[in-house]
């Protein structure tokens, strides 16, 4: 968490643990990896930074034998290695913890850990090994616990133990903190430092979060469009320099900085005056939004204007016998951006599904612009004026095999059809207007949504939802998997929506995102609202305590 904790860069030993030279990989016309050189030394944490699609995953897949390189050499401890399968990679001491865990939920911890081993099964020995690894690295876990009963942080520990038990010389972690609380992230980095300093292993940390790279790594390599564009000692490089290298241009502060994850997350360190300015700017934005929010209400003078755009009251949702939301209450005023912040898996999905009309709560009410909504009626929320960017875009946000035009009008067929038939002229007119207004780049309006990039798909969803003129917009993880440009754009549009009087509920796991956008931050923990803070009073520490379920 604190940058100064970083141990001074040790003199690199002559032979790096891992040396990549001229790694090249093409997929048809796309060069995913364009002559990448990378040295990772024993005893260092090496950050691999880059936007989505920069080639980080391809490189790691090559290293793990999941993808075959077209050109280039891999040297492990100075010896050329041909890695053609994941088994090869494991045998040569390369271990990876994937972003999405590869654990079997129905099995216990020890069973998951020995999965893939050959030979007889010795439960006692396996449990012993798990306990031994867990003590050695400070990763407390019960070997007999079932994985399904574990939290995301605990599951990651299992993945780590699984890797470390095989005594890897190179350990790769792909976006390891995306499911962790601040406290859990700090713990993880402590373990990693131990692994690196005392056992001289090499660690590759893949991330798109600059703060994290700056905090945890010794050296850093930045990839952009398949090439290494920067490479150096982290301590000598500021986050802004890294941001510039990653995006390929000078970055402004504010939304863009938040998109990159360089807003101050810890106590503001020296030399961070620039980030301090960003904070001021953000506060002003927040105030401005509140000011604007008041304006339409005063103008109307109607009693309904006082009603919140969205009022959730004591919502309880039980899925498969597990309470996902418990007495969940939250208000969003018109023109306000309220963030619901929390670690993944604390009820956000249930809330998103509820607001998407896919789940009916056991009890509780939803009011939109002062009117209660009959939640058991299909489409009632949409008709009442709720727009939603769902967390699982492909799940129900878009229909991938239908065209851009069809996806843009699918929730407002009344507007483009008469007497039972969809007017193609009106459908294309509406679609063309929305595509232009929201800068949706597509091969054509007839192209299936599947052929669009994530950012364009997300803009399409936003365009469709806002075109219905909603009083409230729910954005669940709206920037997941988008590149920096698309994230900035999403932020701008969410702000614009709020400025036009729409109440925005932003459900996010990204601290920087909620700090940058929201005027109030509600923290969700275990299906309840643990607390609500105005952004001005929110700090990473206070939010962190709320996330952990403690009062702040």
């Amino acid at each position, binding site marked *: 968490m604190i940058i100064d904790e970083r141990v001074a860069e040790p003199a690199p030993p002559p032979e790096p643990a891992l040396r990549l030279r001229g790694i090249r990989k093409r*997929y*048809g*016309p*796309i060069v*995913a990896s364009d002559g990448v050189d990378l040295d990772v030394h024993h005893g260092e944490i090496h950050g691999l930074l880059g936007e989505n*699609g920069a080639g980080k*995953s*391809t490189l790691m*897949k090559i290293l793990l034998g999941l*993808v*075959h390189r077209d050109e280039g050499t891999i040297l492990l401890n100075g010896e050329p290695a041909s890695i053609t399968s994941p088994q090869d990679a494991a045998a040569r001491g390369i271990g990876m913890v994937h972003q999405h865990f590869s654990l079997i939920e129905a099995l216990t911890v020890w069973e998951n850990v020995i999965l893939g081993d050959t030979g007889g099964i010795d439960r006692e020995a396996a449990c012993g090994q798990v306990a031994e690894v867990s003590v050695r690295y400070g990763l407390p876990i019960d070997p007999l616990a079932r994985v399904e009963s574990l939290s995301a942080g605990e599951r990651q520990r299992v993945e780590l133990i699984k890797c470390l038990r095989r005594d890897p010389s190179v350990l790769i972690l792909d976006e390891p903190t995306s499911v962790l609380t601040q406290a859990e992230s700090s713990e993880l980095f402590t373990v990693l430092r131990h692994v690196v300093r005392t056992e001289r292993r090499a660690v590759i940390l893949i991330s798109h979060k600059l703060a994290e790279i700056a905090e945890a790594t010794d050296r850093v390599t930045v990839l952009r469009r398949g090439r290494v564009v920067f490479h150096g000692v982290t301590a000598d490089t500021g986050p802004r320099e890294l941001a510039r290298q990653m995006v390929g241009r000078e970055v402004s502060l504010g939304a863009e900085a938040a998109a990159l994850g360089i807003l101050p997350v810890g106590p503001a360190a020296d030399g961070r005056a620039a980030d301090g300015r960003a904070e001021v700017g953000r506060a002003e934005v927040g105030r401005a939004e509140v000011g604007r929010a008041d304006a339409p209400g005063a103008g109307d003078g109607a009693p309904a204007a006082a009603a919140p755009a969205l009022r959730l009251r004591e919502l309880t949702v039980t899925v498969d016998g597990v309470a996902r939301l418990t007495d969940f209450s939250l208000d969003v005023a018109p023109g306000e951006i309220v963030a619901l912040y929390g670690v993944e898996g604390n009820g956000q999905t249930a809330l998103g599904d509820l607001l*998407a*009309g*896919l789940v009916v709560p056991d009890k509780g009410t939803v009011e939109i612009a002062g009117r209660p909504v009959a939640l058991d009626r*299909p*489409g*009632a929320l*949409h*008709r009442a004026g709720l727009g939603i960017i*769902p967390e699982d875009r492909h*799940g*129900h*946000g*878009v*229909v991938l*095999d*239908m*065209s*851009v*035009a*069809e996806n843009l009008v*699918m*929730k407002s*067929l009344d507007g483009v*059809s008469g007497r*039972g*038939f*969809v007017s*193609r002229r009106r459908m*294309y007119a509406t*679609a*063309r207007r929305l*595509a*232009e207004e929201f*800068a*949706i*780049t*597509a*091969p*054509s*309006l*007839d192209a*299936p949504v599947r*052929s*669009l*990039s994530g950012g*364009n798909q997300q803009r399409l969803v936003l365009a469709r939802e806002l075109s219905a003129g909603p009083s409230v917009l729910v954005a669940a993880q709206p920037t997941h998997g988008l590149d920096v*440009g698309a994230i*900035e*754009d999403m932020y701008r549009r969410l702000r614009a929506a709020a400025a036009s009087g729409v109440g925005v509920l932003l459900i996010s796991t990204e601290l920087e995102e909620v700090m940058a956008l929201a005027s109030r931050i509600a923290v969700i923990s275990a299906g309840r609202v643990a607390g609500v803070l105005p952004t001005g009073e929110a700090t990473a520490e206070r939010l962190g305590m709320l996330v952990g379920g403690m009062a702040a």
Partner: protein
Amino acid sequence: MTSHVPAGATSKGRKGNPAGRRALPLPGPGFWWTAAVTVAGVLVALALSSALIAATGGSPADSVAALFQGSVADATAWTSTLLYTAPLLLVAVGTCVAARSGLFNIGQEGQVLIGAMAGAWVGLRLAVTGPALLVCVLVAAMLAGAAWAGLSALMHRYRGVNVVVSTLLMTFIAQQVVAFAVNTPALLQESRIGDGTLAPQSNPLPPSALLGSFGEYPALQVNGGLVLAVAGAVIVAVALSRSRWGFKLTMLGHNPDAARHAGFRTTLLGGGALALSGAFAGLAGAVLLTSPIGVNRLQPGMAMNIGWDGLLVALVARNRPLLAVPVAALFGVLRSGGSFLAATGVPAFLVDVVKALLVLAFVAPPVVVGMVRRRRMARAGAKPVPALEEAIA
């Protein structure tokens, strides 16, 4: 921000490419591969068929000649071919409707029988005269077919019974119900004339309940059933690609969650599609009953596997109603030519084998090509999208 090209500015040829074609990867490389593999598949199927016929002591050349003579050589042959085409097409069109909504109705054989039974009941028992009786027969058959398929929809809605399983099993119940009806004098069994023995069949339908034909023997005769079937195919094709209902159904089929999220009553929509597909099968049953394809009596064997073959037609036509028209005609050729072929000494089951080989040749290629491409894409990390974007930006 990079320069955005608004979608409208780059769309080309939109008018010539109605959205109903979206399921087919038309101009892409996948299309040509699929076409090439299909041609190869058909050639292999024909080669295998010839080998089989030769192996069973027949002459492949004679067999082809017989197939040709029995199906398309002259007006009479064409008449017979088109008689088979009509019910096949009706079943296939119904299958397209259900498949579009993501449900797989495979119980058409039973729905055909139930439709025919309801038609026979109305035709024999209803005191209506003139062409109105025919209309009553057709409507009754459609309603009965819809109800039979609707039962599966209800089982799915209230008990979560898999639609594929329930429609399939309901076929066997339908066969028993019809067998019972034509074996029970109080129901539909034929009346006793003198002291002859009773066959398990109904009385023949009155002439006013029969579908007429255009054209006189020996010229080509086109039965009214074919007119109904082609009209049905066109109407369904237009409705699926142009109507709100078709839009919703397509959405439901591609992504039920999205359809639910958009506020459609998905249960009603899906159940309705299933019932409609049953209605088409029921109508096929009525056509079998009232056209000169058979003896115009309800008989337990009268469905003649039309329900199963209609499914295959839809399968080969990739669930597109207009494409089902020529495919149904091809299956009609195989049926009428097949019975002629059997007369030349080639075992009748060989015709079924040939048919199965041809179906495989048509159905397998897109699946195989898709599989190969997916595997290649998976190996390549599946990232064609940015390229597409950059290419047009």
